[in-house]
């Protein structure tokens, strides 16, 4: 009961912040609102018992990426450039996308339904992971042991993103000294 109330309050706040992000024109305010959005999402993940995801969201979404956004804002202008063209086509694209997403929602399984394949697999991991790996946290066991290849790919993605940003932003040696 109280969990439902907390979830509803969080979702209402998320909706309000989202409308704020869409409406606000100052980019600094948008960055702050994005941080609040991430923080609310992190709280929501805790309500859903996904503590690992909540930790990541709080650290990356609300923490580090806010700093990166502010750094980018310092390098650019802090006010959104006004759009020169009409807003009919973007509105149409957004409406069609939203319609497709709502239509897709109707095919989702009921929330927390135990009959889904993903939950049957999950139960299997829960039973297997401690005897096979000796790791009490099933999330860690699945990420690093059963899906080690996947996590290697993710690490490579972080690596690639890092060298990409560095290649774009770093001052070249020939410019040096300034």
């Amino acid at each position, binding site marked *: 009961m109280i969990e439902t109330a907390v979830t509803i309050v969080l979702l209402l706040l998320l909706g309000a912040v989202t409308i704020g992000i869409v409406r606000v024109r100052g980019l600094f305010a948008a960055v702050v609102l994005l941080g609040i959005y991430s923080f609310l999402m992190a709280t929501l993940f805790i309500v859903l018992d996904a*503590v690992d995801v909540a930790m990541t969201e709080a650290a990356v979404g609300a923490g580090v990426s806010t700093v990166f956004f502010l750094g980018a804002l310092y390098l650019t202008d802090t006010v959104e450039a006004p759009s020169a063209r009409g807003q009919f086509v973007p509105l149409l694209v957004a409406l069609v996308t939203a319609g497709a997403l709502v239509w897709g929602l109707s095919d989702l399984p009921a929330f927390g339904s135990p009959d889904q394949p993903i939950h049957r697999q999950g139960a299997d991991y829960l039973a297997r992971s401690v005897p096979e790996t000796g790791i009490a946290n099933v999330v*860690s066991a699945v990420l690093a042991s059963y899906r080690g290849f996947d996590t290697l790919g993710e690490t490579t993605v972080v690596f690639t993103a890092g*060298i990409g940003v560095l290649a774009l932003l770093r001052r070249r040696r020939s410019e040096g000294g300034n």
Partner: protein
Amino acid sequence: MRFDIILRVATKFMLAPLLLFALYVQLHGDYGPGGGFQAGVIAAAAIILYGLIVGLAPVQKIVPMRLLEILIPGGVLIYMGVGIAGLLTGANFLDYNHLAHDAVHGQEWGVFLVEIGVFVTVFSTMVAIFYAFAGRRRS
């Protein structure tokens, strides 16, 4: 911000617990929530916070760019190395069963080392991106 005494003192108090918490999340990831990715971001956040307060030059004395350039690919190499160690000990790529005397210990070692690889790459990438942004001037 650089001369705000409250921020400076508060940062000084927060830095050590932040780094300790990052280590806790890294090493306790087997038992509680956490792991290399989260710990890497938290540790990077500590360094970035220090950089925001004291400026780019002092923080680059502690974590120089040259070190990050080694660490960014280094983490991926640690991860791959654990995978190849699995191959060399007669198992599949990224199969940790043969890394220690029995399979469960091997798994524990494998996951521990792999998480360190993730930590190193995530930490150094985050800090390097911060340096890249902070090192530029408005053009």
